[in-house]
């Protein structure tokens, strides 16, 4: 409503731009930042198709076509790295995504306000802890001879497990620590959607004899479903942009079979071995898959539920 009035009042075109010049001035620093630190690096992506040499700069370096992409696909562990990325991403999404929703639904069903608030406060705590600290804590409590987890296992008669160096434990550790860290924070959105549900629905359902669990599903869950869907699309849009910080920190020479993902590989080949063009090609490949996934999800959800990002 208001928007329309404004539009009529000020008209479109140059006149309205001139009229809003002060707003553009407020926006200017951010716009400059956006161009320099987001779009300029995107332009830098063309080194994936060149043999980049620092002295020659981006433009003068000779073209290399798809050489670096081919080189990546022909490395012996390319398939493994891609698979690791896909498996970790998908497992992480499917396991971590529903948990904040369930947590929010359960927490919202608690009638004691003080308890609800306390649990909520506690659940946010890990979000403010750094990845370095989280990995340090994991490595400490899971240590083979000094961590209490392994001492407990030993007392139960099992031999100590080298959690942080065995490939089969990398994904569970990555995913569980992620849930531990962000469950509470990710639930905020759902909790706020839940508080906006009118209590009348619940009253009516109670009279009709719906049990608490039924109400939880048929009222609470169904009413926050649009929010859940949007969050799901967003999560898919970031599916392949796994936090490489944690993967890198959890990596050891021994668990590379599962812990080497595209982004850690890019970091190592690019910044540690200075293979700039090659690693940019690998990273671009990752971004493209990610972007295609986002588009596909967006189309599918638009068809099914009329909810979409673009």
């Amino acid at each position, binding site marked *: 409503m208001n928007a329309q009035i404004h539009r009529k009042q000020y008209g479109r075109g140059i006149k309205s731009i001139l009229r809003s010049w002060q707003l553009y001035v407020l926006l200017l620093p951010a716009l400059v930042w956006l161009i320099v630190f987001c779009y300029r690096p995107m332009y830098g992506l063309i080194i994936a198709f060149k043999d980049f040499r620092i002295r020659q700069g981006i433009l003068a370096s000779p073209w290399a076509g798809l050489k670096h992409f081919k080189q990546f696909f022909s490395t012996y562990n390319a398939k493994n790295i891609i698979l690791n990325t896909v498996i970790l991403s998908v497992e992480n999404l499917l396991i971590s995504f529903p948990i904040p929703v369930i947590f929010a639904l359960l927490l919202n069903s608690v009638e004691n306000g003080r308890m609800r608030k306390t649990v909520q406060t506690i659940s946010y705590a890990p979000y*403010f802890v750094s990845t370095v600290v989280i990995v340090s804590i994991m490595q400490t409590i899971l240590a083979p001879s*000094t961590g209490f987890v392994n001492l407990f296992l030993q007392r139960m008669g099992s031999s100590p497990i080298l959690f942080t160096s065995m490939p089969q434990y990398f994904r569970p550790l990555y995913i569980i620590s992620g849930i531990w860290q962000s469950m509470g924070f990710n639930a905020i959105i759902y909790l706020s959607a839940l508080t906006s549900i009118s209590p009348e629905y619940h009253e009516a359902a109670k009279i009709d004899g719906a*049990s*608490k669990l039924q109400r939880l599903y048929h009222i609470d869950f169904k009413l926050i479903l649009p929010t859940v869907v949007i969050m799901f699309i967003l999560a898919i849009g970031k599916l392949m942009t796994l936090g490489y910080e944690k993967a890198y920190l959890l990596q050891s020479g021994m668990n590379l079979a599962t812990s080497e993902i595209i982004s850690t590989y890019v970091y190592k080949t690019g*910044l540690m071995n200075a293979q700039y063009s090659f690693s940019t090609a690998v990273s671009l490949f990752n971004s493209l898959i990610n972007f295609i996934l986002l588009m596909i999800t967006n189309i599918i959800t638009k068809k099914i539920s009329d909810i979409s990002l673009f």
Partner: protein
Amino acid sequence: MAKELAHHIKQDRSSAIFNAFVICFLLLLCLVILYPLWYVLIASFSDPMYVNSGRFLLYPIHASLDGYQKIISYSPLWMGYLNTIYYTVVGTAVALVLTIPAAYALSRDDMPGRRGIMFLFSFTMFFSGGIIPMFLLIKQLKIYDTVWAVVLPVGISVWNLIVCRSFFESNIPKELLEAARLDGTNDFGFFFRIVLPLSPTIITVMILFYATAQWNSFMNPLMYLQDIKKMPLQVILRNLVLAAQISNMVGDANEAAELAKMAEQLKYGIITVSALPLLLIYPFLQNYFVKGVSVGAVKG
């Protein structure tokens, strides 16, 4: 009638069971969330011998401040701490200056082109140049190994920008702008004298989010800084606690062994001093960030 009553009683009972189950589950969850943090805290006050025996600790054993005394005399840690504070303060200030005015401008529906500009920002959430082009850019801008290399690449978090914009959209009434216009106030005046004083909530939220990100940041300093004296706490912590890299960083075998021994004694204390500030602050700002996130999410 009797049947209905019986049904209601049954329903009440099932609800009670459900409630009990939920409460038990949530309490257990709280324990799982808190125990690792609590463990580190009490271990930092305990005799390392007992901690390393792998006992399941509930309270400090042979409590002492030995660990902390060693930490105080370990100078790289303090340097790291100071660096972290410096980067956090500068980074948060830069981020606020970039984010808040832009978010306000983008919240105004009479600003031509705001949809397009918003799209340009949102697009970067899903597609970016990646670390190598960013690294080369930082070299090219000649800010490598300076505070700006740590601060500028994360100058705006688009997600924070959206949260902030949505807050302005739903909390600054249009009537206010119209009234101010009648009084002859221009957009600058309106933003600085009316919008900002009305928005302590969102400013607090932004400070908290940006400061948390910078305080906890590890990968950017590792990539964009070179001088060990400039490294923030997280990098120092990583070097000390996860002893893997120590030999690379130091190069001297004796010194490496010395550091590894020290790390064993100090790690709990160091984790505590690095994580504690934020853990002490956030509960007081909880209402702010919950409000900020919910407002942002509904519209974003």
